């Protein structure tokens, strides 16, 4: 085990996978000479050369599509989007090419590609730079969506994503890059996609979440525990494939659930999770499943408004109290 930041864990995963497989290359804006907009690719240019660490023009559709083509022809590209906000320009190639080529070609063209970068809000970056993009990607069959919350998950899941033969949208958190944690140093430390992780255990209520919101959920769980309420925090880690069993197992134990996500509620990831719970554990539920999400508005700039728009530990506690039919203290 080594203590490292989320950023360095991602960097280690990239370095190890590039060393392991010469077909893996990294392309994106500022990934090479600038060492990465968020320094995730620091040192990779020096180690692997401009042949494999490639600065692209600001052309998301173009380099997104180029990398899908390279994957069609057998390479294993890692595409860095400076943030997933910018990836909307490339969505045609993600949804219409990467997600569908295997199916349309009846299995002839697997697309082993990773699209990675930060999703969600940071601080006061306002509407166009502060949105959770999971829903756009997770909607289409053919794309996996992975959202690591800790340095260890970041490393193990990125390695898994790079070795995977399907397109993977790997969504990081800008505010997590400096977050430190224990990370196994083993070169073959990989975490299978589709396996949720119980980040906190309790018997009274289930908080299901993913990505950066895991930390908000943990704050809420700690707060609840001081009041004698035990919460399970189920970190999905990947939204597709979805670990349905882990969600249902917890709900069957606690009989109450809250979904927490950074994105908008309307047709968001939470809508899917709530449907999954009511389909699979209806008879176990003692209360309606509630969602804590971003307010249904574009992200405002003003600090006070931004705080109001974002999900918070207090709102999670409030939702947990509601499903427990419990007066807040």
């Amino acid at each position, binding site marked *: 085990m080594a203590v490292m930041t989320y950023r360095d864990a991602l960097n280690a995963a990239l370095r190890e996978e590039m060393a392991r497989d010469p077909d893996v*290359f990294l392309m994106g804006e500022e990934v090479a000479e600038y060492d990465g907009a968020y320094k995730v690719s620091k040192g990779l240019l020096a180690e692997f050369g401009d*042949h494999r660490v490639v600065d*692209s*023009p600001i*052309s998301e*559709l*173009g*380099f*997104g*599509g*180029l*990398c*899908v*083509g*390279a*994957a*069609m*022809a*057998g*390479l294993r*590209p890692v595409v860095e989007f400076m943030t997933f906000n910018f990836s909307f320009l490339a969505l*045609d*190639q993600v949804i*219409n*090419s990467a997600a569908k*080529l*295997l*199916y*349309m*070609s*009846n*299995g*002839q*063209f*697997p*697309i*082993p590609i990773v699209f990675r970068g930060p999703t969600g809000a940071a601080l006061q970056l306002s509407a166009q730079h502060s949105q959770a993009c999971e829903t756009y990607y997770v909607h289409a*069959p*053919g794309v*996996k969506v992975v959202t690591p919350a800790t340095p260890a998950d970041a490393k193990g899941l990125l390695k*898994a994503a790079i*070795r*995977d*033969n*399907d397109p993977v949208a790997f969504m990081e958190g800008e505010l997590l890059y400096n977050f430190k944690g224990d990370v196994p140093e083993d070169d073959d430390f*990989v975490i*299978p*996609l*589709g396996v949720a992780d119980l980040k906190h255990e309790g018997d009274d209520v289930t908080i299901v979440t993913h990505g950066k919101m895991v930390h908000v959920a943990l704050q809420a769980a700690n707060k609840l525990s001081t009041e004698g309420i035990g919460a399970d925090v189920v970190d999905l880690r990947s939204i*597709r*494939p979805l670990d349905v069993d882990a969600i249902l197992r917890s709900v069957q134990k606690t009989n109450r659930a809250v979904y927490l996500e950074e994105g908008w509620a309307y047709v968001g990831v939470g809508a899917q999770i709530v449907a999954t719970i009511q389909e699979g554990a209806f008879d176990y539920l003692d209360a309606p499943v509630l969602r804590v999400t971003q307010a249904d508005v574009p992200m405002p700039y003003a600090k006070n408004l931004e705080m109001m728009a974002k999900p918070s530990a207090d709102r999670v506690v409030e939702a947990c109290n509601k499903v427990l039919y419990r007066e807040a203290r």
Partner: protein
Amino acid sequence: MAGTKTRRAKAPKESPFDMHGIAPELALDLLREMLRYRRFEEKAEEAYAIGKIGGFCHLHIGQEGVAAGAIKALRESDYVITGYRDHTEAIAKGVAPTAVMAELFGRTGGTSGGKGGSMHMFARSVRFMGGHGIVSGQVPLATGIAFRIKYKSEDDIVVCFMGDAAVNQGGFHEALNMAAIWELPVIFVVENNHYGMGTAFRRVSLTDMVERSSPYAIPASKVNGQDVLATYAHLRDLAAEVRNGGGPRFVDVETYRFRGHSMSDPVSGTYRPKEEVEQHTHFDDPIAILRDHLFEAGILDQDGLEAMDAEAREEAQEAFEFADASPVPGPEALYEHVWADVDGDGRLRFDGREEAPWR
């Protein structure tokens, strides 16, 4: 439509026969190829009319010179990628007409087991990289295939076909720019039939087609796609330049669509005058032009042409019969190939790369 009768398609201006250095046997092969494509598409048209084919169906009739001229100038290991008017380009690259027709019919014998349809022919084994349905979607993909070639220091090239409308898409410009800065081995071939669906190119562009690659410093050229020998010779030369490390090329291949945009569009439609279509079908038929050249040069006679045409018709008929007899996909096919890595229970698996079919 090219008949097998000796009707002379008189060009408006007689020009001396130019074989472009192409041997008579090759010229005959190119005629044979174009006849195969023509008879195939006519058979598809017939099958569509009787409900054997559904959905969108874009025929290549009139544009056969582009497929034959460009693709036959390549090596087998070169890659071809195209848009949705893809039937004959798949055949030109070596896909069996039976498989193309069965795909049109939505049958298991099709190139994609019936799951792609008219716009999505694929054949990895002959490096036919598809049939793509979003205008210009194939242009960044082609550039990525060329990136792979350079990454692996190979000497294959990519030919990327697109219609004239594709050059107004952002992906076209982004891809050409990257192909240029990284000197990638790709030839961008515009099959310029002058209409993006029903919109004339002159209505949506103030610049000539051949100028469209100039912002990226990609050398551009123009060739008459109805003259298959000229097209072949030109693409052969471009392929050599690109293969030798010359970087990408852009070529405006002038052609004309003898049918509607798709099967739901009448031959002339509301957007192009009937006389224009008649003029082109009468004077600009790539099959008739080469046929007349070969007659004049004494390389082919009427009997030879009829024999060649009979073979093409027979092949199209066989394709029809094969497709009609091919089973429809079973229900198990519905969920197949959504994901590359699944376990026996159909769940997604973590790492099955060793089992990928092509590694």
